[in-house]
């Protein structure tokens, strides 16, 4: 058994103004996705604008505290504690703004008909504060741990390569970038314009 209060959850501040409060990762939940979110301050994003086209998750966003204004498929809904939005259609764009400093939104997700697999964005999000502080080795380790479970995940491999290039591990960066591009050729196009790879772009074998 593991327990925590929502106010005890880690705060991972993202550039879009929302603060990710990891639950699934903290408890090592393996059967469904679950996290909490809060805004950096009243009026800031609390749920980032996105669709679920890639993961095909159905999602519930439940307001635990405060108030949030959700925008789903262009419609606005202001929700308070105990109110939720359930989004069945992964194509629909969704996002929310926290209207009070203390807003907490619980997010649940999973793909119907499929066993849950932890989402690759979680380690990427978790590494963001480390990247801001240029703590490359720690950010790399988070990605390596995620790749142990999903070794052929193109986005994870690409992000790992970015971190390795920034951290001076040029050969590792080239190898992982090449692997990401083999699995998903569009990553080679991204790499051609990605400043993270400035230090290795002229290397032989750079996949672009």
């Amino acid at each position, binding site marked *: 058994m593991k327990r925590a209060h929502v106010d005890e959850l880690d705060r991972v501040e993202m550039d879009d103004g929302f603060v990710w409060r990891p639950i699934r990762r903290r408890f090592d939940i393996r*059967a469904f996705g679950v996290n909490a979110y809060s805004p950096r301050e009243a009026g800031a994003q609390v749920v980032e604008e996105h669709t679920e086209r890639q993961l095909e998750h159905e999602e519930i966003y439940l307001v635990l505290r405060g108030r949030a204004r959700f925008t789903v498929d262009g419609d606005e809904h202001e929700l308070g504690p105990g109110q939720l939005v359930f989004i069945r259609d992964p194509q629909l764009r969704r996002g929310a703004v926290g209207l009070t400093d203390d807003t907490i939104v619980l997010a649940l997700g999973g793909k119907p008909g499929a066993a849950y697999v932890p989402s690759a964005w979680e380690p990427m999000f978790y590494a963001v504060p480390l990247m801001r502080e240029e703590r490359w080795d720690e950010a790399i380790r988070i990605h390596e741990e995620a790749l142990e479970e999903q070794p052929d995940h193109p986005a994870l491999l690409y992000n790992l390569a970015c971190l390795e290039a920034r951290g001076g591990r040029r050969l590792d960066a080239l190898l992982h970038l090449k692997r990401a591009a083999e699995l998903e050729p569009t990553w080679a196009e991204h790499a051609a314009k990605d400043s993270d790879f400035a230090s290795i772009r002229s290397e032989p074998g750079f996949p672009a």
Partner: protein
Amino acid sequence: MSKGYEILSLDDLEPLPGNPTGGGLLLPLRHTLGLRAFGANAWTAELGRHIVPPHEEESGDEELYVVVRGRARFTVDGNAFDAPEGTLVHVTAGEHREAIAEEEGTIVLAVGATPGRPFERRGWDDVVVAFAHGAAGRVAEGRTVMHDLPDGEASWVKPYNLACYEARFGDRDRARAHLDEAIARSDDAREYAAHDSDLDSIRE
């Protein structure tokens, strides 16, 4: 439904008695939303009563309990602790858990699924909803819910539950036909039927 999303308040859900494992009143979230990727239901209970009944998850589900409102006192494998609003409690399948409502109006959300397997609804919460329809005189609505139950791993269970529903709220001839079907599929149905008060109206 047609918009691909729904807005709902937990306060909109009618608290339903009849949880087969005892405990509190079901706020039937999974049934109402038609969730297909994981199980999620909310519970409420009178002050001092079980809001999470004492149980383990024989299904293999791991569960996350979220105290959405009020306060509960959880006991997990003998460890008791206070859980105010905003508390998250994660429990693996084999851990024995229970919780008591410590404030009026307490709501606990329970989210569960089995690691490594696609979620499949088991239908127990649908049965609670159907029986609530039946008890309120909405017999046809309840019958529709009952017929939509998943077949489950034991093929006799669905016709058996249909028999119970019809015997309590509907048509006795239908109840007998469903019970005959259940018994034809398994002797377990006959054993359960021998002392199931749901079937009193058709007992000879």
